[in-house]
């Protein structure tokens, strides 16, 4: 019995008697959330980093509170809080305007939650990277009479990219793994569907290993792309060792 359940590869078949299709669909959901959350987090991170470096004292303190709370509270707790509070608050606001409540899709809520967590992390990474840009470059851009926005898009962001990429690529890997936490709030991403498949068939080890292989593949494929991006961003840099 035990041996049978170990090697029953038919369970991984893509068609309904097997659960392979379900797992791949879960992986797709995970990737969607990871990409969405990461992009949202980057936006928040750029805003947060600029706020922290160039904002007024109050903005700076608020940003500090945001990053401190996210870095001190477990992701799982934040995800629960944001998941319930976020959907509740949105419905409350919509109710006040008079549109009435809407059903917020799990996907949108997941992207929002992962994005807020990632935003704090990338704020810190980007802040460090911007500080690594020689200040003379930014001052030169200002001396040319560029507007602050133009300084940001033409000088600060491109110049800080090589410093930020190692940290940002780590954050991408963390985002892909953090999507697993959404299993706790019942969003059917890879980890949760794996548990459902395993519970239905009792082939726990097979399914969890299969899901692990999928996550690992995602990480390794990401690593290849990260290497390419890194080489591209660091071209013209003296390799220091």
């Amino acid at each position, binding site marked *: *019995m*035990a041996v049978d359940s170990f090697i029953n590869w038919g369970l991984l078949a893509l068609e309904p008697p097997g659960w392979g299709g379900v797992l791949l669909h879960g992986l797709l959901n995970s990737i969607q959330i990871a990409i969405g959350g990461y992009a949202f987090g980057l936006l928040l991170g750029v805003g947060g980093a600029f706020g922290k470096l160039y904002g007024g*004292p*109050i903005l700076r*303190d608020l940003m500090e509170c945001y990053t*401190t*709370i996210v*870095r*001190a*509270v*477990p*992701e*799982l*707790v*934040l995800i*629960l*809080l944001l998941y*319930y*509070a976020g959907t*509740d608050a949105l419905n409350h606001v919509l109710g006040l305007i008079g549109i009435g409540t809407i059903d917020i899709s799990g996907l949108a809520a997941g992207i929002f939650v992962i994005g807020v967590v990632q935003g704090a*992390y*990338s704020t*810190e*990474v980007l802040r*460090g990277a911007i500080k690594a840009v020689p200040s003379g470059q930014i001052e030169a851009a200002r001396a040319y009479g560029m507007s602050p926005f133009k300084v940001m898009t033409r000088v600060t962001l491109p110049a800080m990219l090589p410093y930020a990429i*190692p*940290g940002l690529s*780590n*954050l991408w*890997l*963390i985002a892909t*793994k*953090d*999507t*697993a*936490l959404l*299993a*706790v709030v019942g969003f059917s991403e890879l*980890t949760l569907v*794996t*548990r459902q498949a*395993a*519970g239905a068939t*009792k082939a*726990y*080890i097979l399914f*969890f*290993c299969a*899901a*692990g292989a999928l*996550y*690992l593949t995602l*990480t*390794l494929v990401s690593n290849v792309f990260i290497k390419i991006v890194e080489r591209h961003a660091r071209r013209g840099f003296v390799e*220091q*060792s």
Partner: protein
Amino acid sequence: MTDTTTPDVTTHAMAILPEDLPTAGSFFKPHRIVLLLIAAVLVFCIVWFMRWDWLPQYLPRLGYGIIVTLAMLFSTSILGFLLAVPLGLVQVTGPWPLKALASGFCTIIRGTPLLLQLWLLYYGLGSVFPQFPAIRHSFLWPYLRESWPYGVAALTISFAAYEGEVMRGAFAGVPAGEIEAARAYGMSRWTLFRRIWLPRAIHRALPTLNGETVLQLKATPLVATITVIDVYAVISKVRQDTYITYEPLLLLALIYMCLTGILVVAFRTLENRIPTRGA
């Protein structure tokens, strides 16, 4: 050497470190008084207008949960670090099969979510063990029927893999001259490792150890998903019993912030005693 600095940057982005703590002199500025007042009003509103009548009833259980969380944190960090030392060492100096094994282990553990590893151990191994009579009759069986050994195992493995990568960089980063000097003194390989290489590597790894430990604290609530009753599980129980959504979660966030704060302050005291920065 970019390789050894990257985990440090990411850890800092994800976990509070002692250098983030404000000093008393820099903290009090005019605008902060206003901000503190607003924060005080906010806290007052939360205390006054939200429901906290459940709190006294669950207080003993919360204390017990906090102890479980801390026990999980410290036991897995210490065990994980003990595992991380050989993992790092083997990757720097071991024969190639061991090297490949250790780096493969680190890649696999770091490449998959902790929640998945936890569930693999708990549901996977937990369903396989009872099928072997030898295990069922061994002295370990009373423990293997509980859920906490699986939680400890998963958290230990994860900490070992992340910290093993740090230790690899630390072992590789010890200046070759120091090791050559030890060899020139005629130290045996074991003495060299015990007296020079290991202490220097640990010394170099200490700053990242702070961050990794804070990250480990942030990972402990996951064990609540396999029915270990830590502080997170107690709060979940409160939410199930009372149907209150936010208050327990806010309290939980506050508890974790306090735990993190205490941990970070403790590390700062430790760091002031052992000067590690710039080592």
